[in-house]
């Protein structure tokens, strides 16, 4: 499950970490290729930060092993302490050393080099994040975004094998967050550093990741490109995690699927008569006002450029529909719903996706 063309930089093999009776990380295996940005995304408490701490050596797994650049750093009776792992770490709270200047913060990880080299490297890094003019300031004199960049420069200065980012943007306000994401993505791709990125923000995950791993309750539900995890979710959880997801039930026939929103000419490898749940996203549907319609608008969410309608179906299910803001229908309006996805929809039995012509995502190797 990695970029086949590049060597593996980080490998987790059957890693498990328990705290008392809670299993924070449950038998996780993952590989990250050289230069790849892997985003671990999941709700708070899913174990993603524990996973990052295990990689950093700030915590020890109960079972399994972790390799960095093909060297076991944890597991099989070996434990390499964090200071010898060659990982860089950026925290949500930046964790700058408050009693040191920016330059000394960046120089902290370079103490084995000669003075001249340290100085050169520090200014190289500060130039990279465009903060060279701030070198002699103290962290409290900087803005949030500047602190973030210093933290990144500090983590990258010793040329780590792996860069670990723990929710690095969540302490920034919304506008700054967008700008920082772009800035940092460009920067990371420019120096081609292997990145292990942890976030709870699905938008951020889709935007930044070469691949995205969706985590839930200590387990990885799915790993894939942003497009794959969004369009071909392997589980209910992954489908719902990326938002505004609705399911309608479908009846399998030899010709396709019968649903309460009409017939879908989509064939499944299931026997006729089976029941499935079909994932319907807001862009798969169109609603038209119709006095004889059996559905009605339950709620309207005005989002600026679009309106998100919550539509109640006769079966009692609720679906979402995204429409341009030129149409504004009041709640209670009777509507007719047309399902015209333009592509196969993902069907689930027992909360897991069944293959629909495209083979299942998790079994696949993808060149990016």
């Amino acid at each position: 499950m990695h970029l086949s063309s590049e060597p593996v930089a980080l490998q987790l093999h059957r890693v498990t970490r328990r705290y008392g009776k809670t299993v924070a990380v449950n038998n996780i295996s993952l590989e990250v290729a050289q230069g790849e940005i892997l985003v671990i995304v999941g709700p708070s408490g899913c174990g993603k930060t524990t996973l990052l701490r295990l990689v950093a050596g700030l915590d020890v797994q109960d079972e399994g092993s972790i390799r960095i650049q093909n060297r076991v750093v944890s597991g099989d009776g070996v434990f390499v302490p964090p200071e010898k792992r060659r990982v860089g770490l950026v925290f949500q709270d930046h964790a700058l050393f408050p009693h040191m200047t920016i330059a000394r913060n960046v120089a902290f990880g370079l103490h084995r080099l000669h003075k001249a080299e340290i100085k050169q490297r520090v200014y190289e890094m500060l130039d990279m994040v465009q903060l060279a003019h701030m070198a002699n300031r103290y962290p409290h004199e900087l803005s949030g975004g500047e602190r973030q960049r210093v933290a990144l420069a500090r983590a990258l200065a010793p040329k780590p094998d792996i860069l670990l980012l723990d929710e690095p943007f969540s302490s920034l306000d919304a506008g700054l967050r967008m700008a920082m994401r772009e800035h940092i993505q460009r920067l990371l791709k420019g120096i081609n550093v292997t990145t292990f990125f942890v976030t709870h923000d699905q938008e951020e995950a889709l935007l930044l990741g070469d691949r995205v791993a969706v985590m839930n309750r200590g387990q990885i539900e799915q790993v894939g490109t942003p497009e794959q995890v969004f369009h071909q979710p392997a589980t209910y959880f992954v489908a719902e995690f990326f938002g505004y997801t609705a399911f309608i039930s479908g009846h399998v026939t030899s010709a396709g699927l019968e649903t309460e929103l009409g017939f879908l000419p989509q064939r499944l490898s299931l026997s006729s008569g089976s029941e499935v749940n079909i994932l319907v996203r807001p862009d798969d549907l169109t609603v038209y006002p119709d006095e004889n319609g059996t559905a009605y608008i339950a709620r309207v969410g005005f989002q600026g450029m679009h309106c998100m309608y919550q539509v109640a179906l006769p079966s009692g299910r609720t679906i979402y529909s995204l429409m341009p803001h030129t149409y504004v229908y009041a709640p209670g309006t009777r509507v007719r719903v047309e399902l015209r996805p333009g592509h196969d929809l993902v069907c689930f039995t027992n909360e897991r996706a069944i293959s629909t012509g495209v083979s299942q995502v998790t079994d696949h190797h993808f060149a990016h």
Partner: protein
Amino acid sequence: MLIGRKQLAKSWSFPSIDRWSIIALLIAGLALLPIAIILRMLLLPAPDVWQHLWATRLGEFLTNTVILLVGVGTGTVLLGTGLAWLVTAYRFPGQRLFDWALMLPMAVPSYVLAFVFMATFDYTGPVQKALRDWFGSSVWFPSIRSGGGAVFVMSLTLYPYVYLLTRAAFHEHALGTFEVARTLGATRLQAFFRVVLPMARPSLVAGLSLVLMEALTDVGTVRFLNFPTLSDGIFRIWHGMMDRDAALQSAAVLLLFAFAALLLERLTRGRARYVQEGSRGHGLVQVPLTGWRGLMATLLCFFVLATAFLLPISQLILWSVYELQQRMPEDLLAVYWRHARATLMLAGIGAAISVLAAVLLAYGVHLSRSPITRLAARGAMLGYAIPGAVIGLGVLIPLAWLDHTLNDLTYQWWGVLPGLIFTGSITGLIYAYVVRFMAVAYSSVEASLEKVSPSIEAAARTLGASPVRVLFHIHLPLIRAGMLTGAVLVFVDVMKELPITLLLRPFGYDTLALWVWQNVAESLWGEAAIPALTIVVADLLVVGMIIRSATLQRRAPMEREELARGDV
């Protein structure tokens, strides 16, 4: 929390022991030993000792202790809470000044105020003399050398504990709810008694328990004012009757009182902290007090400040100047220097060891993954609640035993008597100081360590720093301010300490506080004034720090920045 061990940790079901928990257990063991030794006395049956004690003065000591606790408790709660509400909720001439100045009386130890009052208000003092001159010899004046006098003096010096904590509670939490209560139809007075006061109660009780602990440990005030309580009684039995067993049994009884005060504190402590950490309401709109009401408020605050602080300070200065003019300064300075040197040395060593122990404990609690470390650290803090006389005796007993055993053994083996190595040196004294005051150092070290985010440590480790480098380059620089604060607090506490010093000082180690004690015993007010003034000035340094942090609360953003730079 970081892992320093090479092996993989397995999940465990019982608390594990690591390096830090062993250090913490060791410190806790040493700190609890003296207390345990006195506690053990309660289990030893000693009917004849008790019979003798009852027959002599134990009843008086007990009664006086209860009177003192009830009196001082009531006095400090009324003064402390009343003044705190006055300066928080009302505006009157001088209110902004009194807001912080009312904490100043903390700097005057009770026994100093006691002897200043004695000299001023006693039968032979200037006040009564003047009254007799004006009104004739039959004029009545309340005797300062009485239970009432002791309660009065200690209420004046100890009310700032209650004032400080309730004031903080009023400032931080109660004000928003006060306004809500007003909008719900309560009058100012109703809102105060039904909303503000109940919310401040945990802080109030925490302050009260500190007051009670101080009242229990005091020997100077009650000795000077001739109102012997249990603490003083222990010294009378120990020094006067030379009755070791009776002194130990009395110490055990005193310990029970201390536990009661401690229990009071523990029961309310968690909630007190909750109140103080709660979100800060915006300031209360203060009601201006005009005309005679404003004047009354000003006069009341001024009266308290004048009697508890201005009077003793100016009296001490006057006496000191007079004394320096009267006596050969070289002669006096030589004696002064001798006491000051002993004080510096004892307080310096005491402070250094207390801070060292505090750093070990705080760092241990921070790093250790074992709950035992936290538990042990908590146990090691118990000494602050235990009266000095109890700790002093509790230290003396094992050290005397050690000396005896050592001498016996060396005599048997080599025929040599090394003498009193432990009881004859400052070992016991330092030991007891550390037991009593380590908690003071710990709380300031811990407070500054807590502000160091764990992610800072993790960041340093991943940047290639070993745990040792993290300690020296990250933690120690960041907690330096806390260590310094802790050291100053312990230093001043040792400086003004009486009971432990009285019990354990070896020959030639008379501190300034002890010099005050000896001079007062001989009614040498002038000579007592010079060391007393030194103590008050040093104490003012601490009170200055307390005032600064208490008033900083309203300038929070600035404080945060200073804290971030670690230069508070």
